[in-house]
């Protein structure tokens, strides 16, 4: 079965903090305020829509979703 994962491209993220606000279960900010995925980025069942929403609200297009 394919696993949905989120990822933040570090060179694109500027710390808008939209993903962390929308999906705190999936993203967190470092001490500079830049975001990264929690753990290995795997999206638990039930949080797929939040992952999509986080991606579609990133002003810098830094949030990526993969299915592997």
């Amino acid at each position, binding site marked *: 079965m394919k696993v949905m994962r989120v990822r933040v491209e570090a060179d694109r993220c*500027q*710390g*808008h*903090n*939209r993903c*962390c*606000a*929308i999906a705190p279960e999936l993203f967190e*900010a*470092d*001490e*500079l*305020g830049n975001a990264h995925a929690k753990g290995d980025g795997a999206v638990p069942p039930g949080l797929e829509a939040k992952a999509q*929403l986080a991606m*579609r*609200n*990133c*002003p*810098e297009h830094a949030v990526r979703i993969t299915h592997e």
Partner: protein
Amino acid sequence: MNREKPARAPVQDWGKDFDHRDPRWIENPFPIWDELRGTCPVATSARFEDGAYFASRYADVREIAYDAEHFSSRRVIVREKKVNPVQPAPPITSDPPEHTPARKLLLPAFAPQAIARLEPRARALCRELLDAIGDRKEADAAVDYAQHIPVRLIAHMLGVPETDGDLFRRWIHLVLEVGISDESVIMPALTEMSTYFFTEIKKRGAVDKAKHGDDLISFLLGARMEGQPLSDPHLVGTLRLLLVAGIDTTWSAIGSTLWHLATHPEDRKRLVADPLLMPTAIEEFLRAYAPVTMAREVVKETTVGGCPFKEKGQVLLSFPAANRDPAMFPDADKVLIDRAENRHAAFGLGRHRCLGSNLARLEMTVAVEEWLRRFPEFRLAPGAKVTWSEGTVRGPRSIPVFTRV
């Protein structure tokens, strides 16, 4: 405080002779931007030294924001006459490579975790202001409420008296509004600000940095960039930036939101009934009423959106206009407080993303929540005259309301 404004010719052609100080633009710029997007997406004007440009489409604003090679941040306000020499306020006026270390220094103090700790103070000061309004039926949501919130919170963060708010607002009015057309007021205001901060620095004792408190001035005094303390011009430039950038911007965002709710009872009722909608609504208010227009200076001739940009030209980088572009946002002209997909650019795009965005969101959210809790049925006072600021930061400066039915 309001000086007499020099008479200026009314704009006849927004495409070739725009003026963001024109009363029609100040009152309601949205139809002008819509017209420009369809006819002349990059407007020009000879009313500003070396010529000015105004990009109205999201794609063009984004391209300029990402392009530091052709567009420098050394001047972040479009003025009739340029101020020379340039007045650095790092990192907002910094270009790469100086920009990154100057910004990195400040980021931890404005990261989400650091800002979240300010919520109790923000809530308390909103309640103090609401207590002062008390059970009066008539109040001014801008004058009695919105304008005080960011001033007091940034004063709290800087470790300066919250009662100095009038002084701060005066400097900001001179630098950001009057100074666009009358350069003679800028240097005296900047000098006053520097003197104010040098006095604050002295109070903290320049020698033993270990004794400093945890306010931002102390933090910057103890900060190191590549192993060295900040130079005086860097330190004071940054302090001036923190003061100027954090006040009328957020005051405008809170004001515009309250103005919207005062004039759209269906949205007000919906937010009162469904507080979980607040984060989405706040993002929509940020999109629709983004207060801040930045600026760039053309340092190398180029073309954006098919339009030439000549060297030395001043560029209005209008995130507010980008946010209203229907090519980017469906129903861009409608305020939809449940707009779930909202990649707005209110805090800018690229490396200069507003350092204070987490602070601004906190202040907006707390200010609106506390206001609605106290005055859930407020509305615009009948016959009220709402006035809007001029220039770089847009927001209502007076919002007469009835606090109850």
